[in-house]
C-alpha cells in the first residue's frame, strides 16, 4: 500500500507541522509582495534614469551605475546574492535576521528585472506622446509622471504581475540564509521522518495554489486597469 502510506505521511506531516507551514506561506507571500512593491518603486526611478531624454551629466553618471546594477543582478543567481548580502552585512557589523536579509535580497533582485520591464514599457509609448506633453510646456519630469509612466505601467502590467509570480517560487532559494518560507518549512517538517518526496509534494501543491491564485487575481486587476494603451495606427 504505497499510496496509502504516501498520502498517510503527507497527512501526518501536514497535521503535525500545519502551523510552521502556514507561517512559511505567510513568509513566502511577504517576501514576494514586499519584493515586488519595493522593486517596482525603485525600478520607477531607475527606469527614469535609463530613459530620460537629453540627460545631463549627473543623469549620465547615474545611468552608468543603473546599467551596471542591472547587468550584475540579472547575471547572477539570487541564491548567491542572498549569501553575499547576508554575510557581508554581518561582517560590517550589521546583525540582521534572515528575513530582513531575504526581503532586502528579493527587493534588490526584483528592482533589476522591473527596471528592464519598465524601460520596455516606456519605449513602447509613442514618442508623439512625449512631444505633445513637452509642447504644452511640461518639463521632462512632469511629462514622465503625468503622461508616459501611466501608459508605460499599464503596458507593463502583465510583466509586473509575472515578476510577482516568479518571486513566489524563487524566494525558495532564500533557505540558504535560513529564511523559513514554504520550501524550507516543508523540508524541515519532512526531514523529521526522512520523507523528502512527501514534504516536497506538499510544497509543490502549496506553490501551485499560490501561483494560480495570484495569476487569477492579477488577471482581474489587469482587466480593471484596462487593456494596454497602444497607439492604434489607423485612428480613423
Amino acid at each position, binding site marked *: 500500500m504505497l499510496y496509502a502510506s504516501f498520502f498517510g505521511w503527507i497527512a501526518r506531516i501536514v497535521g503535525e507541522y500545519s502551523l510552521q507551514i502556514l507561517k512559511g506561506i505567510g513568509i513566502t507571500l511577504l517576501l514576494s509582495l514586499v519584493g515586488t512593491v519595493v522593486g517596482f518603486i525603485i525600478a520607477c526611478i531607475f527606469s527614469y534614469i535609463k530613459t530620460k531624454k537629453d540627460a545631463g551629466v549627473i543623469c549620465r553618471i547615474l545611468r552608468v551605475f543603473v546599467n551596471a546594477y542591472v547587468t550584475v543582478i540579472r547575471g547572477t543567481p539570487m541564491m548567491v546574492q542572498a549569501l553575499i548580502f547576508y554575510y557581508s552585512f554581518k561582517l560590517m557589523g550589521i546583525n540582521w535576521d534572515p528575513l530582513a536579509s531575504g526581503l532586502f535580497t528579493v527587493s534588490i533582485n526584483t528592482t533589476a528585472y522591473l527596471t528592464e520591464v519598465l524601460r520596455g514599457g516606456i519605449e513602447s509609448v*509613442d514618442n*508623439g*506622446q512625449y*512631444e*505633445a*506633453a*513637452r*509642447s*504644452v*510646456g*511640461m*518639463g521632462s519630469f*512632469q511629462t514622465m509622471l*503625468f*503622461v508616459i509612466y*501611466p*501608459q508605460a505601467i*499599464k503596458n507593463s502590467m502583465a510583466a509586473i504581475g509575472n515578476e510577482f509570480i516568479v518571486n513566489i517560487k524563487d524566494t525558495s532559494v532564500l533557505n540558504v540564509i535560513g529564511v523559513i518560507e514554504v520550501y524550507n518549512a516543508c523540508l524541515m517538517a519532512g526531514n523529521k521522518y526522512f520523507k523528502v518526496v512527501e514534504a516536497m509534494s506538499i510544497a509543490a501543491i502549496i506553490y501551485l495554489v499560490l501561483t494560480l491564485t495570484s495569476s487569477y487575481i492579477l488577471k482581474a486587476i489587469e482587466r480593471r486597469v484596462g487593456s494596454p*494603451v497602444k*497607439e*492604434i495606427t489607423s*485612428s*480613423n
Partner: protein
Amino acid sequence: MILSIKNLKKDFGYGEVLRDVNFEVEKGECVCVIGSSGSGKSTMLRCINLLETPTSGDIYFNDVDIKTINVNTLRSRIGMVFQSFNLFNNMNVIKNCTVGQIKVLKRNKEDAEIEALKELERVGMKDFAYKDIKTLSGGQKQRVAIARALSMNPEIMLFDEPTSALDPEMVGEVLNVIKQVKETGMTMVIVTHEMQFAREVSTRVVFMNDGVILEDLPTEEFFTNPKNERTKEFLKRYING
C-alpha cells in the same frame, strides 16, 4: 514682430535639412507653408518651439531671442498641433485640455475646466468632454488636439500637416475648425498640402524647397503670380493634378 527666424540651419547629421531659412510672422497673420516632402517645412516648424534644436541661426519670439527664454515657458506660449494628433492616451478629452493648464500655467482645476469646455465648444467637441480618447474618430481627435492647444491661450498656433493623417471625409471638419480659429485673430503658421485650403485661409504663403524658402508672397499673388520657376512648376502640378 511675434516671430522672426534668422539664418536658421538644421543638420540631422546626414546633410542639411534647413539651409539658411529667414522668415517672419506678424501678429494676426495666418501663414501657410507649402512645399514637397523633405523640403524642411515640418523641421522649421518644430524648430520654433524647440522640438528640434537648431544647428545655427536665431529665432525671436516677440523680439526676444528664444535661447534666453525658459523652454517650457516658451512652449506654453506656442500652441502645437501634430499630424498624428498625439492626444494623451491615458486621459479623457477634458483632461487632455486641462492638464497643461493645471501643471504648467498653475491654474486651478475649476478655471481650467471652464477654459477647456469653452475651447471644446469652439471646436464642436463639448459633448465629448468626458469621453475616452479611444472612442473618437481621427477628425474628432484632431479637433480635441486643437482645443488642447487653444486651452493654453497661446500667442501663436503652429499646425504640422494637421489633416495629412485623416480620411478624406474628415479633412473638411478639421479645416473648418482651423478657419474658425483664424477668424478670432489668432496668429497661425500652418504646414499643409491642402492648396485650396491654403488659398482660402492664409494671408501669406511660403514655399519651401530643399531647405530654403523660395517664395514668400501674399496669398493671391502667390497663386496668381509666383516669381520663382520652381514654385510655378510645383503649383502647376497641383492645379493639373
